[in-house]
């Protein structure tokens, strides 16, 4: 059971963290919804449609954050064969994919009334769509092989190749001209968003991260249990084979 020494420690920490992460998620998302939908002003140009920003922008951040986390875990898994790293990468992928999907669809719902189009093939939108495909490719590849370790290795390599897309998304609006506007929050010279609008934005961002922690713990628990089940089954088959030979 040496293989599970680290996962065992993860499980202990996870049990401690889970209720706190859930509490933070519920509080910040609840407050974020209220501030986002009611407790913040309309924009001077975009009116009430600016409220879409409070889910769209944090979802975009999460899409990039989860991908980076997944790539870092994959690198650790490839280099140091850390048994937990693969599981964490696998557990993060669906969350990142979900946030990227939310970002793309809410972006379309925001673009239609403001820009006059659901979708354009500019550098920002296209690179974000590629991010979604990278997630889907990662998840498909990780499950595509009968030998889970081979699939995991192939998926880890894909995630490292795809990590080049993350800085492209971030700076696409600066490197090329796009329909999408440049960054508002993380930019030189400080944010270009009024503080009254920063409140719901930050609450949702914290809430989404807490949500990620909750789901990460749940999915990693599932992955650890699945890995143990596989090991036990293999031991059973092995023992049965020996018994037959005897």
């Amino acid at each position: 059971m040496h293989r599970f020494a680290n996962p065992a420690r993860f499980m202990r920490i996870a049990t401690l963290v889970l209720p706190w992460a859930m509490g933070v998620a519920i509080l910040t998302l609840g407050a974020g919804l209220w501030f986002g939908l009611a407790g913040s002003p309309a924009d001077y140009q975009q009116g009430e449609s600016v409220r879409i920003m409070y889910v769209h922008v944090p979802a975009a951040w999460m899409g990039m954050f989860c991908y980076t986390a997944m790539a870092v875990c994959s690198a650790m898994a490839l280099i140091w064969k850390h048994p937990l790293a693969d599981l964490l990468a696998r557990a993060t992928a669906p969350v990142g994919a979900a946030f990227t999907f939310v970002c793309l669809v809410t972006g379309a719902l925001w673009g239609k009334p403001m820009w006059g189009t659901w979708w354009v093939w500019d550098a920002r939108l296209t690179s974000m769509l590629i991010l979604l495909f990278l997630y889907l490719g990662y998840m498909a590849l990780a499950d595509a092989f009968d030998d889970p370790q081979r699939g995991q290795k192939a998926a880890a390599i894909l995630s490292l190749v795809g990590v080049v897309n993350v800085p492209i998304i971030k700076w696409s609006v600066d490197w090329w001209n796009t329909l999408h506007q440049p960054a508002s929050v993380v930019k030189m010279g400080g944010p270009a968003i009024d503080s009254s609008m920063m409140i719901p934005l930050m609450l949702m961002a914290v809430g989404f991260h807490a949500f990620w922690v909750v789901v990460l713990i749940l999915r990693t628990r599932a992955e650890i249990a699945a890995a143990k089940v596989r090991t036990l089954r293999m031991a059973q088959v092995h023992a049965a084979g020996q018994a037959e030979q005897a």
Partner: protein
Amino acid sequence: MTRKQRRLYFVVLGVLAVGAAAALVLTALRQDIVFFFSPSEILEAKVPTEGRRIRLGGLVEQGSVVKDGAIVRFRVTDGAHTLPVVYSGLLPDLFREGQGVVTEGKMGPDGEFQAAEVLAKHDENYMPKEVAESLKKTGHWQGESQPAK
């Protein structure tokens, strides 16, 4: 070198190589990745416009919008050069004088850009109306929709 170190170098070099390849490809495709051209680029013939559908982007010049039934005429400027545009159809909510705009269409023979589609491009500033007004009043306004000089 231990196996772990070797794997570390492999991963680091691999990621760097992919990054360099991506940088090369993106630099080569620069002209295709930009979403629109400025009036200067089009007027200085830096892009082929002959009979091709292109996108023109810039600010809608203050006081240039003239509506004649369903037909709208306005001028797109980037500060240095200005191009007249003609369009008929629905305009997005954010289409305003002094605001960013991206239009797709063809250069007409008379030098007028015939737009088939008009999209609004907004800047990265978000604030409530009152803040915008007080900024304008105190002269600290830095947004796109600046009144014409």
